[in-house]
């Protein structure tokens, strides 16, 4: 379980957000939505302590992530899989090696099993024949899939998605959304999805948090989102041209 309490973050004199309180229960998928520059990705990077807050704390299964020494923090981070906005694939190695990469260093397993698990992860994201292609040879959607395969190859407890569908065509976006659902349903992974794609939110999330005006201005279930009356949130949803039934 992820517990976020009284989180505040500024860069210099610029306040990003404050008084952020959220809970993500085991197996749940939380979507964090908001305008570009509202600090969604900044919040996501706090969950595995890539960034540290000015105030407040985050507990992962009861452990305050910001109070860990670097050795423990690295162990805690291994429980997370992260899909970055641009996939963040290592361009000096092949796509397959990107997926196998975390296994080579953190799992004391034989080469045969590394190959097997990397292949299985790639199959899960429907990329069986990726071969030795370098990340530069892949399309945006394929890069995201490889990024996702790399994120799940270590069988993490938590998956963090940073704009998983941004820059993708509607069909590929839908495929990524299906994959997010598949991860949550079949692997029972707790997920946090940062996005401004309302269609994606409605498809994958169980809970939603809306960042606006430097705080979480609205949070609730996906059903409650459909009937939310908050003006800015309604405008945000309308602007995305998605009609809520």
């Amino acid at each position, binding site marked *: 379980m992820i517990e976020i309490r009284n989180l505040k973050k500024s860069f210099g004199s610029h306040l990003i957000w404050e008084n952020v309180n959220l809970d993500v229960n085991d197996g749940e998928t939380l979507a964090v939505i908001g305008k570009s520059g509202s600090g969604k990705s900044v919040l996501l*990077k706090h969950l*595995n302590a*890539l960034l540290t807050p000015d105030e407040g704390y985050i507990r992962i299964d009861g452990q305050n992530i910001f109070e860990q020494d*670097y050795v423990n923090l*690295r*162990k805690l*981070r*291994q429980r*997370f899989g*992260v899909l*970055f*906005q*641009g996939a*963040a*694939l*290592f*361009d000096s190695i092949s796509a397959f090696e990107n997926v196998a*990469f*975390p296994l080579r*260093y*953190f799992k004391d397993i034989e080469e045969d099993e590394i190959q097997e698990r990397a292949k299985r992860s790639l199959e899960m994201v429907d990329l069986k024949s990726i071969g030795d292609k370098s990340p530069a040879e892949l399309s945006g959607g394929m890069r995201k899939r490889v990024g996702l395969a790399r994120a799940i190859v*270590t069988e993490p407890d938590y998956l963090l998605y940073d704009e998983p569908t941004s820059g993708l065509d509607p069909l590929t976006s839908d495929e990524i959304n299906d994959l997010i659902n598949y991860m949550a349903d079949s692997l029972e992974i707790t997920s946090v999805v940062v996005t401004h794609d309302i269609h994606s939110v409605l498809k994958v999330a169980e809970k939603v948090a809306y960042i606006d005006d430097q705080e979480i201005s609205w949070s609730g279930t996906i059903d409650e989102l459909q009937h939310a009356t908050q003006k800015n949130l309604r405008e945000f949803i309308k602007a995305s041209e998605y009609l809520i039934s």
Partner: protein
Amino acid sequence: MNLFEELGRFSNLLYKTLRSSTEVKTYSGNLLLEMIKTGYDSLPIILLTGVFTGSVMTIQTAYQLTTSLIPKSTIGAIVTQSTVIELAAVISSLVLAGRVGARIATELGTMRVSEQIDALESMGFNSVTYLVMPRLVAGIVMFPILYVFALTSGILGGVSSGALLGTLAPAEFMTGAQQYFFGSDVVFGLTKSLVFGFIITSIACYKGYYATGGAEGVGKATTQATVLSCIYILFADLILASILL
């Protein structure tokens, strides 16, 4: 960021690198590759620089020694000692600041702005151990080796240009060279190149690792790494000459 903050962050990066020296498994894979990139791949430019420096030095020294009272072998002595003490280390390092320093700053800077360093940290990696340690060690080990190549090619360039232009015979050159060739001068040159190797790789790693601001930020980091390396090489040269000679 002021000078003291910058120095603090640089020292902290070096401290983290030193502290991670025991994590051999994390950086050993990259170490050989970095040694090849820094050493073997730089050989052509180093040999070219050495040959031309030695040749020009011979021509200019011959031009200045117009009196017949000084034996021609003196040209060999001057060229060799200048190359051993100063030129092989300093000129090759200034060239390598562009060749090696710029490469390292660009690689790490690109990894930073494309979130590849965040991806490493997210997986539980110590990114400093994985990225900075092998580059720093490769610089410290390979620069003295490159110095030996620069020195040898410089002397050979001097011998060749003297013979080709009819200024002095190779035997005369080598007589002078041997007369003033001291082992302690070579040790001094090796020490300088080791220090310059550390300066170039540490500054490049620092600038690249903390690069911000997309492609422009990477360009800025690369330029700063190259310019600062050249400045600090000249200062270090002065300090080492004052202390060791």
